[in-house]
Structure formats: C-alpha cells, structure tokens
C-alpha cells in the first residue's frame, strides 16, 4: 500500500495538537443499548478528543464499541451518560442536530446499499438538493466532489455498474458535497478488493493533506490504520490505547491481547527481534523492513 506517513511523532505533540483545536470531544461517554445485558454497556466511559484536521484510525476487536462510538459523532446515538460535543455543540441538544449532521458525514461498509439515484451525479446531488441550495451551488458542489473523488468521467454512469472501490468513492463524494468538516468511515473498505481499498485510502490521504479534512476511520486492516496519524484502540467499550501508529504497532503482544494484529512488516520485525536480530522499534512498512535488514548484513 502507498505510504503517506505522518508528521506528528510523539504522544505529547499529538495531545497538544488535539487539545488546541478539538472538533469532536467525548467526555465520560456511556451508552447502553436497549435490551442489552445490564452491566455491559457498549460504551463504558470514553474520553476522547479529536483534533481538527487529524486523521484517526479507530480499531478494536468485534463488539468493542467502535460503531457505537462513531454513531455518537453525528448524533445517530445519544449518550446514556456523559457528553459528546461536535464543533462545540452538544449532541443532546435537539436544536443542534441539523448543524451536527452537516458537520459530520458518515460512510458505511456496504457499498451496494448507499446509492440512491440512477446516475452518479444525481446521487451526489441528492444531499445538497435536500439542503435546498440554489441549482448553481449544487452544480458547483457536485462537480467539486466528483473531481476530488476522481469520478468525473463516470458522472453519467449508473451507480450499480461501478466497481466496489468506485462505489465507495461515490458514497464519499455524496458526503463531501455536504461540505462536512469531519468524515467518519465505519469499515468503508472491508468489502473491497485490495485495489478498491487502495483507491479509497489514496482519496482519504488526499482529503487529509489537501483539504485538511478531519478523518475518523474504523478499520480491521492494520496496514490501513498504520497510514493514519493516530490510532485509537477500543476494548470493552473503553479506549485501551491511543498513540501514533509506529508506537501502537511496536507492542505486538499487547495488540494481540486486544484482539488485533500488527501490519506484516512490524510482525516480521518482531519475530526477527525475538530470534536475536537487532532491528529498531517502529518498523511499519515493507520498505523500512527491507532497508533495516539490508543494513544488518
């Protein structure tokens, strides 16, 4: 996978950048699903601040609370206890709902269920039309969203004939046309083939770098998580680990305990170190691994 590694290197820098300008803040967030076993809340006290312009990967074992958490970010769910703020607005104020839904755009797993129209550009226009915008403003937004997502040449195609990667880029285009500040993706690449995943990850990197978009992505692909600036690991409805990828993935045993794995090059480096080779910590990519190995011999 292409490598867009980060600029923020230490936990302190990360924390400072976050606190200075948080766009999403969760404070003591607790959520109990209706009918779920008492004493096992899906979220069990989450404190988390996501900085403006940050690219955060949210990972964790099945049932750890990732989807429940991100649904709080656009008020699809409201906290049982604690609070969630989006761009300074509390999600439990009904008067804030509209603004919050415009601030945070969501993309989900299944690319087949997300398009609503017969033609790609109509699909992208659906959201802005519902905002009641003027036709030329809608036109402008649709064009822009199609350009950013690289779907310009498909504007007159039928959505169901697009490839998986294109369908997910279309879903993202539809969200971008709403001009959100934050893009939340819940396993948006999990049904795609590697090429489709790479398309989507490339698009996220571009949105992050060029448009300064805040990105929160839930994923089970550790190689994808390694591309983010920050990795938050959930476990049992709480934040278990929160740090930059090279440090998170340096602790192979801890990640296994948390139901996860580390990217392949990190796993190899770990095994080689166990067998006595001296490799530095923080090896994450194939290139870094090959480089370090060649330095050894």
């Amino acid at each position, binding site marked *: 996978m292409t490598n867009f590694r980060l600029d923020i290197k230490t936990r302190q820098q990360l924390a400072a950048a976050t606190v200075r300008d948080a766009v999403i803040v969760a404070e003591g967030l607790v959520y109990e699903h209706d009918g779920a076993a008492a004493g096992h809340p899906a979220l069990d006290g989450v404190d988390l601040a996501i900085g403006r312009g940050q690219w955060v990967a949210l990972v964790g*074992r*099945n049932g750890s609370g990732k989807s429940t958490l991100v649904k709080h970010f656009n008020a699809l769910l409201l906290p049982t206890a604690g609070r969630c703020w989006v761009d300074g607005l509390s999600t439990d104020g009904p008067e804030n709902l509209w603004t919050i839904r415009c601030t945070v755009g969501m993309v989900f797993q299944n690319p087949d269920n997300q398009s609503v129209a017969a033609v790609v550009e109509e699909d992208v226009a659906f959201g802005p039309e519902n905002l009641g915008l003027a036709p030329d403003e809608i036109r402008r937004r649709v064009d822009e969203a199609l350009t950013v997502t690289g779907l310009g040449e498909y504007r007159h195609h039928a959505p169901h004939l697009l490839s998986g*990667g294109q369908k997910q880029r279309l879903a993202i285009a539809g969200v971008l046309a709403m001009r959100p500040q934050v893009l939340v993706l819940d*396993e948006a690449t999990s049904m*795609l083939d*590697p090429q489709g995943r790479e398309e989507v990850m490339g698009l996220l990197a571009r949105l992050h770098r060029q448009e300064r978009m805040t990105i929160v992505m839930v994923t*089970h692909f550790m190689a994808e998580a390694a591309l983010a600036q920050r990795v938050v690991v959930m476990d049992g409805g709480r934040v278990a680990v929160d740090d930059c990828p090279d440090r998170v993935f340096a602790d192979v045993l801890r990640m*296994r305990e948390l139901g996860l794995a580390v990217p*392949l090059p990190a796993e190899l480096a770990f*095994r080689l170190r166990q067998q006595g080779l001296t490799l530095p910590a923080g090896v994450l990519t194939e290139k870094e691994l090959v480089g370090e190995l060649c330095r050894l011999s």
Partner: protein
Amino acid sequence: MPIELIDVSYTYMPRTPFRREALRGISLTVGDGEFLAVIGRTGSGKSSLIQHFNGLLRPQRGRVTVDGVALHQNRAIDKLLRRKVGVVFQYPEHQLFAETVYEDIAFGPINHGLPAGEVEQRVRDAMRVVGLDFGEVARRSPFSLSGGQMRRVALAGVLAMRPQYLVLDEPSAGLDPAGRREILGKIYRLHRRHRLTVVLVTHNMEEVAALAERVMVMKDGRVVSDGSTRQVLVEQADRLPEWGLRPPGVVRIAAELRRRGWPLPTEVMTTGSLARAVVSICGRTDAE
C-alpha cells in the same frame, strides 16, 4: 467425491442492454478433502461461481454435479445435495433471520430432524469455533450484535449443519484480526482432521498463502490460472498484476530481498518461513 462443473456459463439479465456475462464456460473439479482458494478482482465471477456449488444459481449452459449427482434434476435431490455444501455468503448478515442467535444457528440442524440434544451440541460446537460465548450471546437477537459478531453467527449457522463442503465467500471481512486468524485456524484443523473440503474466496493473499493447497485465479468469468499455492503465488507472481492481484506481502518482501542479493529459497510464502530463512542467512554472515 468431488464437486464438478462442466462447461458452465451464466449471464445476468440476458437479452437486455444490461446483460453481464459472469461465467464463461467454466470447467473445474473441487476434489474431496481439498483446501482451495479462489482469488480474483471484484466482479471476476467468484461469487457467481460459488453460487453454482449449491445450486443457488442454475447454469444457463453446462452442468454441476455434487458427489456424482447432477443438481437441478428435482427438488428432493437438490435439497439433499444442498445439505452437503455449506455456503457462507459475502454479506452474511443477510442470512440471519431468527429471533435469537440460538434459533438462528439451530435452524439447519432442526430442519434436518436432529434430536434436541444433538441440536444443542451442534450449536455449542459451532459457537466455539467462531469464538462466540454461548452464555453471553445465545439468547440475544442476532440483530443486536456488532457487525463482526453477526458474521460469526452466520458462519456458525453453516458450520452447525456439518457440511461436507464448506464454501466461504470473504469470510474474514469485518472480523477482527485475532478472530480471523483463530476462526480460519480452526477451519483449517477441521480440514486436516476430518478431511473437510474448503473453498475459500478471499482478497487476503496472506490467508491464501498460509492455508490453501491449491489456488484458482478468476478473471472476466474465466479461470485464468489453477495450480498449487506455490505455483500461483510465487512462480507466477509476475503475472498476478495482469489479473488485478498483488502477491502476498511475504512474497513481495522476499522478492525485494532476493533482488538485493539475499539467497532466499522460493518456498518462502509465510511469515514464519520468511523469518526462519532471514535468521539462517544472518546467522551465516555472522559466523563468517
């Protein structure tokens, strides 16, 4: 006995402007006790192919036999053959329907007329394989589960039927990495111990390298390559991009090291074997 496809073709929406040829004259045999991986880009025909294995799609040309008996002769035979071939589809949450996880997984065994005790045993065993806690989950609604938990229920439902052939379409999508490794590991052990035949459709080349004995590559509705895992993933590594695929990470790293003069053997396909080979080479250079 095998599953056999003889010159099977299938076109979606034939005689319309939207017609799509999904399978073009496929002949293949899934041997008894094999672990076969089917790989290929999205849209290459993999899912259409496996829907022929249990008669869910009826070939427009050609025929399908399971254990020597042709599908689509009559209902009774199809029903019997379907029991032998368990398929977990790509969006398994669409397969869920019952009010509790228990009922969902028990549906197949009950339908087969098994006694209640045996049904419960099978449900418990299947839940163990997929890593779901019986006490915690069995009485819950499957629709109140997380995405990965639902996928595990759907998989358990198929396992509880104890099929002779297990066909998995992207089984690890949505599973956490540890769960993925554990569940596939257990399925692999069922394959080794009980000669369970497994057909694994996946994009995860690491899984293919670690588990499969044979690999079939599909492109545009045709089988473009079929051979041992090493033949397809290592010897034909250069051709994979033509088929829209990439070699597994281990094979890529090994190739890069080889290019830089490391004398790595070509068998290297898994993390373990690459680590061993690297250590032995480094040990040798240390000794010099």
